[in-house]
């Protein structure tokens, strides 16, 4: 063992990315490539009475125009998790109905991007327009089913135990709201579809789930799975919006087949505000009742979110509530309403993120009510078991996160009263909140090849969405084989490789590295060697071209014995210049418990990224829809604000706890999403401490501080 696991290792893919060698979906150069531009609806509710494509079709360079009158052939997919999955159940161009502004109503294909865009602009559409339902406050809410209407009961949210009406020495009840947020990855949604003889296709597209995408496109095209190849080696950010094909992808692949040319479709930033997912706005009611000593007696958590007319996606806010604190009485409920907006979807910590904003804000309110330090209040309510499944948590170090975080931050110096800390003209506030995210793991396969030149080659279809997967896979192989990381070559993101699972739900590391570990052990066995050095010697002697082994790894019965979750605590300082409503986050400490940390550098970066995204949610991210027309009124990265460097302080991240070996052989839980949970609450709690003003509606734009 050369003990590389846990060290700080630079990204394997770093050089390729910063030098432009990394090829993203839309960058694949293919001879004969043509360009598609999406035509999108400018109304939010109604239907197309007439669509005039004549002028567009006649413009120079135009090859084809697809609308609902002549859609390319698309086969209806089974559309469930096991077989195939598309983000939006309605297939593109399936009829003349308009369900939301920005819905795809056509695709223009031309020899250049500019000509396709120009022709798309010339299409004239007459609509029959109905007034759209845009207002979440006036919407009609119903008990939510689970995500996609599928059988995932724990996410549906309804749960009741004990007597929720009990009161205590203190009760807080409040409504918290969050705004619609857009994923806004740096790499836009884009793909190239390249058919070979009408029966097999290669698709270059950023996807968090290569094998799922392969199966789905196969069904959509009516071809066997082996005849679809997905190539997705690099992804410029996804955050949940690149897990399945969206309508533009479906349309691109189907249209490419029809026109018999390789076709590229890039979704514009403007279009991405409407038709490639968002996090729904939420309205959450929380009621907490507690004894004088702070022990919770009851938690009520009712969450409302919105979905589109063409898919069911409730934001599962209440999923995390029974995980964090112990209480005998609990009521959780999730409601959903349909609006004429695009389809919402997973966005970094779906559910946990807004859910914990509400819960951790309410906990802060309770702490003030009881005059108990908010750290202490959380410690007193810690639970050893999941409140719904009653399973004990494995390797839980939440209390340490709280205590060590408080110490690193200097929390004990805090003046308890709001408005009591000042720095010149600025009010200073300190706030904290818990972080939590479930630890997920799935089945994955990886292949190892030991090559005569002393290189170990790892292959799997899994991919790196920017998280550092290339690096932790290499580190796992290096550790197991006894090789330097530089001698490991990792190839990811291609469906011809073994099934590496999905980069979603913070599960990639936990899912894949055990498979890499097992494959490495297996290849050493094959080579009859203790380590790679011996294996390479044996290989050269044998005259073979390579030793190869493929292994898979999957969770076993452990999920019946334990609940697996990751934990953390955020502490932050804000300053408020009250007269001019200027709020700055000036200091941040996060202490996180994710089992074994495989690469301290990329793990800390994931947490930092989560914190930054959470600060964005706290301070500025919001997508509004025009109340009359229904179209988003943000249209690019200059109007949809997320943090600039100047908004972000130094973020100090540390990890606590031991390897969670009940969970998987690596002892590693994921860290992609936990970083964002609790962040917004830590900020609003700090703002309360600074100003005495409780902000229950995100984001805290200057108008809310007046």
């Amino acid at each position, binding site marked *: 063992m050369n003990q590389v696991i846990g060290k700080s290792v630079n990204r394997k893919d770093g050089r390729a990315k910063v030098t432009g060698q990394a090829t993203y979906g839309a960058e694949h150069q293919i001879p004969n490539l043509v360009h598609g531009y999406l035509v*999108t609806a*400018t109304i939010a509710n109604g239907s197309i009475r007439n669509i005039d494509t004549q002028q567009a079709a006649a413009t120079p360079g135009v090859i084809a125009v697809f609308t609902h009158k002549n859609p390319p052939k698309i086969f209806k997919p089974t559309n469930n998790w096991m077989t195939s999955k598309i983000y939006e159940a309605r297939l593109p161009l399936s009829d003349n109905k308009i369900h939301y*502004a920005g819905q795809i109503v056509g695709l223009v294909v031309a020899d250049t991007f*500019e000509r396709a*865009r*120009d022709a798309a*602009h010339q299409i004239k559409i007459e609509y029959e327009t109905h007034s759209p339902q845009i207002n979440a406050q006036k919407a009609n809410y119903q008990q939510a089913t689970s995500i996609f209407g599928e059988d995932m009961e724990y996410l549906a949210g309804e749960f009741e135990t004990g007597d929720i009406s009990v009161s205590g020495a203190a009760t807080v009840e409040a409504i918290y709201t969050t705004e619609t947020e857009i994923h806004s990855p740096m790499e836009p949604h884009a793909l190239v579809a390249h058919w070979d003889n009408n029966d097999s296709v290669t698709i270059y597209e950023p996807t968090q789930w290569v094998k799922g995408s392969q199966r789905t496109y196969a069904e959509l095209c009516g071809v066997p799975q082996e005849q679809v190849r997905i190539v997705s080696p690099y992804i410029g950010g996804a955050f949940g919006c690149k897990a399945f094909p969206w309508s533009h992808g479906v349309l691109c692949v189907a249209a490419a087949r029809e026109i018999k040319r390789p076709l590229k479709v890039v979704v514009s930033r*403007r279009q991405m505000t409407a038709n490639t997912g968002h996090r729904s706005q939420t309205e959450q009611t929380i009621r907490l009742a507690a004894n004088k000593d702070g022990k919770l007696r009851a938690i009520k958590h009712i969450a409302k979110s919105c979905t589109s007319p063409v898919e069911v996606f409730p934001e599962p806010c209440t999923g995390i509530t029974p995980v964090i604190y112990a209480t005998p009485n609990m009521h959780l409920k999730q409601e959903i309403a349909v609006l004429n907006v695009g389809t919402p979807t997973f966005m970094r910590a779906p559910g946990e993120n807004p859910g914990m904003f509400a819960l951790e804000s309410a906990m802060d309110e309770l702490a003030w009510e009881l005059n108990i330090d908010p750290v202490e209040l959380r410690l007193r309510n810690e639970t050893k078991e999941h409140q719904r499944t009653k399973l004990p948590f494995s390797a839980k170090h939440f209390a340490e996160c709280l205590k060590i975080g408080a110490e690193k931050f200097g929390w004990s110096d805090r003046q308890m009263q709001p408005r009591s800390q000042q720095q010149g003209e600025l009010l200073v506030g300190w706030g904290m909140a818990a972080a939590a995210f479930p630890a997920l793991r799935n089945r994955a396969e990886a292949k190892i090849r030991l090559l005569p030149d002393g290189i170990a080659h790892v292959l799997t279809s899994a991919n790196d969405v920017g998280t550092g997967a290339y690096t932790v896979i290499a580190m796992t192989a290096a550790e197991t084989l006894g090789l330097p990381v530089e001698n490991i070559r990792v190839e990811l993101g291609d469906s011809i490789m073994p099934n590496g699972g999905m980069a979603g739900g913070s599960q990639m590391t936990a899912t894949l590295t055990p498979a890499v570990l097992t494959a490495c052990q297996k290849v050493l066995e094959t080579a009859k060697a203790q380590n790679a050095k011996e294996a390479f010697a044996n290989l050269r002697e044998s005259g073979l071209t390579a030793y190869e082994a493929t292994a898979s790894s999957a969770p076993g019965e452990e999920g019946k014995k334990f609940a697996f979750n990751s934990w953390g605590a955020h502490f932050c300082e804000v300053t408020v210049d009250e*007269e*001019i*409503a*200027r709020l*700055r986050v000036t200091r941040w400490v996060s202490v996180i418990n994710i089992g074994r940390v495989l690469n301290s550098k990329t793990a800390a970066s994931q947490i930092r990224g989560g914190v930054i995204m959470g600060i964005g949610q706290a*301070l*500025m991210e919001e997508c*509004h*829809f*025009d*109340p*009359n*027309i229904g*179209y988003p*009124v*943000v*249209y690019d990265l*200059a*109007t949809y*604000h*997320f*943090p*600039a*460097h*100047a*908004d972000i302080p130094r973020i100090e991240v540390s990890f606590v706890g031991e390897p969670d070996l009940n969970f998987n052989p690596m002892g590693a839980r994921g860290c992609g999403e936990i970083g964002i949970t609790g962040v917004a609450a830590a900020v609003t709690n700090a703002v309360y401490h600074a100003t005495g003003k409780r902000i229950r509606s995100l984001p805290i*734009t*200057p*108008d809310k501080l*007046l």
Partner: protein
Amino acid sequence: MKNFAYVRANSVEDAISRTTNDRQAMFIAGGTNLVDRLKVFLDEPSQLVDVSRLEMKQIERTNEGGLKIGALVTNTDLANHIEVRRNYPLLSRAILAGASQQIRNMATVGGNLMQRTRCPYYYDTAFPCNKRQLNTGCPAATGINRIHAILGASESCVAVNPSDMSVAMAALDATVEVQGMQGKREIPLIDFHRLPGNTPDRDTNLEPGELITAVILPPLSFAKSGVYLKLRDRASYAFALVSVATALEVAGEQIKNARVALGGVAHKPWRAMEAEEFLIGKAANNKSNFEQAAEIALKDAKTLAHNGFKVELSKRAIRRALTVSAQGGGIV
């Protein structure tokens, strides 16, 4: 996008004659605003007349002791120019508060004056918009109007001018020098941009064919007291919700002269003359004078559904900026 010709002007006269003879022709300088607009069909010129290589890149001292700034001076060069930093610090700070370093490296003085509104309804042809096409309506007035105008708006348009540089120049009594077929003329900066009235399609009083050649800053003895305070939704790289440029001449404790201009509140950089007049002769160490000045500056404010907060935010920004100006200026 519609095909257009691209021509490089070889002289100011050449540039002017091309746009005078062809009303569909447009100048392009740094391209940081126009190219974005072209991509989303806001402008469909017949030709782009590239003026960026013309000789208008100098910053010169005027006989009066002010500065003459060529229209092609980049925002970066202007902000960093030693005389500007020394004698007009608020201009330097206003420019540096805008856009990003990369954009400022390309952006020019002329282009900055001519940049168009960031109203989302203007920016997407999916929406009707009187500014894009007269008599189609203004959905912003009844839509999401958090960033829209509180001063000088009309029924036909509630958009705001997005420029930071122009607000500073308005406070500094700048003059815009323009040249057309008829020769040169000078327009005071505060009359350069227009209120929307019922012609929101016109942002400025520049006549077709006219080229901005320079901006002239008169000397201002108390320019060092200048403050530019920009309040926005994120710490950097965002347009102003509200911005304020101020400067004060104080003798003893008495205000002798004052400048107050606002950005983000109107279809043009908004000079608050009445507030300035009020301040003259008042005590500089009495904050209530600044409060009253702010009330005066905003007394005609009219709000829409979502931008009411801008009134209070503007008042507070004025108060703060004047307070800092009274102390000799600096960064807020």
